């Protein structure tokens, strides 16, 4: 799991939103796909499509040894009332310092209190974490299921 590439993903989302792009490409990886689908579930982006470096695929293309270097994930961004819907996306765990949190800490964050070195969640802010259930989850969902995990990024 590469947090370096996830860091690039976060920066690129912010830059693309500020530039007002409608679709943008990121590196295709399992972690990025999980994060993108979670963002789509929470309404930050409208679609996630596989594609190559030129653009999204017109029809489904299998990933093979020949084309893997050019495979991308194409994400379409949302804008409302002259403002981007996804304006800030920031890593929580850094490559040099991973932050794991259990249910107690997550409950505090979701309730609006700081825990450890992690700032509390603002109104409408979403924190994505990787859990041992095999899926990227949002902090409030993890609290419902009473599980913790590694905090990946926060989006608002």
């Amino acid at each position, binding site marked *: 799991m590469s947090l370096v590439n996830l860091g690039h993903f976060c920066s690129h989302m912010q830059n693309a939103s500020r530039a007002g792009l409608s679709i943008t490409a990121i590196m295709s990886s399992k972690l990025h796909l999980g994060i993108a689908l979670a963002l789509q579930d*929470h*309404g*930050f982006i409208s679609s996630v499509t596989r594609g190559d470096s030129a653009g999204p695929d017109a029809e489904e293309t299998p990933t093979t040894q020949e084309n893997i270097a050019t495979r991308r994930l194409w994400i379409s961004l*949302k*804008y*409302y*009332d002259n*403002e981007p*819907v996804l304006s800030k996306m920031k890593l929580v765990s850094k490559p040099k310092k991973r932050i794991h949190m259990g249910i107690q800490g997550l409950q505090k964050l979701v309730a609006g209190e700081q825990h450890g070195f992690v700032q509390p969640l*603002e*109104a*409408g802010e979403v924190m994505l974490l990787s859990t041992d259930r095999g899926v990227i989850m949002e902090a409030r969902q993890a609290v419902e299921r009473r599980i913790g995990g590694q905090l990946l990024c926060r989006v608002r």
Partner: protein
Amino acid sequence: MNVARPLRRLLQIPPRGARQLTTTTLNPYHHRRTLKAKPESYTTPPPSPYTEGEISKLSKYYTDTQLASLLAGESAIDPTHFHHRHRQPDHDPMKLKYLDDLSTLDPILDAPSGPQTYTPGHPLQPIPRLDDLLTPSASTTNSSTGDPPWFHEVSLRTGFSVAEIRRLRTKILASHSVVNQTHMGKIRRIYCLAVAGNGNGLVGIGEGKSVEHSEAQRIATYMAVRNMMPVPRYEDRTIFGNLDIKVGAVELKLFSRPPGFGLRTSQYIFEIAKCLGLSDLSAKVSRSRNPMNVCKATIQALRSQKLPETIARGRGKKLVDVRKVYYNGAV
């Protein structure tokens, strides 16, 4: 039942605050058929005169003379003629319903009357100037109250009444001297920054510069009242969420606080919050703390608040205030 006696409809008025049971608007595209009065037989009994109780109910809505003339008018009309009245069909449901009184000329919207001679290079219709409206002759000035003259001018420009302008909370937050080097030498002027607000959702800042201190203060306050804008408040006491912005060299953090917390901020942010009508706020100013720029940063931060409704609409999600829904506003 109440076609021939319209006043009867008033007796069946629903109580104040009764719910409108439908949100459907009136259909402007009335079919010709529906405009004709429904055929009623002449064997319907003539309408009975109003009873004492009904007259007393009606006297709640009308004065005695009004009621007498209305009853006289109703009795003068033949019920059969009233029954056969037809409204001219609305052939154009999209026509504008004029609310203006077109019998008097509006100084801005109406073309001038009288002979107009064309001079090349100038428009035929003189461009209306707001200053013409602000001269004392054009307006009804009440100089006996002792109000400064700029009250009336700003009242005309903003649309607030002079009484409302008198009740506004204003304060000079920053003032210092500025120098301009011209061919005549150094011209020293005083700069003032003022904040104005009604304590209930409107706030604005204004700047004024003049050779005299009092004049600069007057200009600053006038501009502050002119620049007042509505700012959203959560529960009318604090801001929506925490704000973290950088304006110029001022790094400003504003924190939303629970009820009863108070305004624990520096003096400039305190005054702006008081004028706006915030009661719970916390702030941290780092990097530059220049008073003028802190004021400008605060106003910009307050206007940059993101409402939960906007967030919800952008994401297509429902945002629920847990404090209100789950804790019933107790926490």
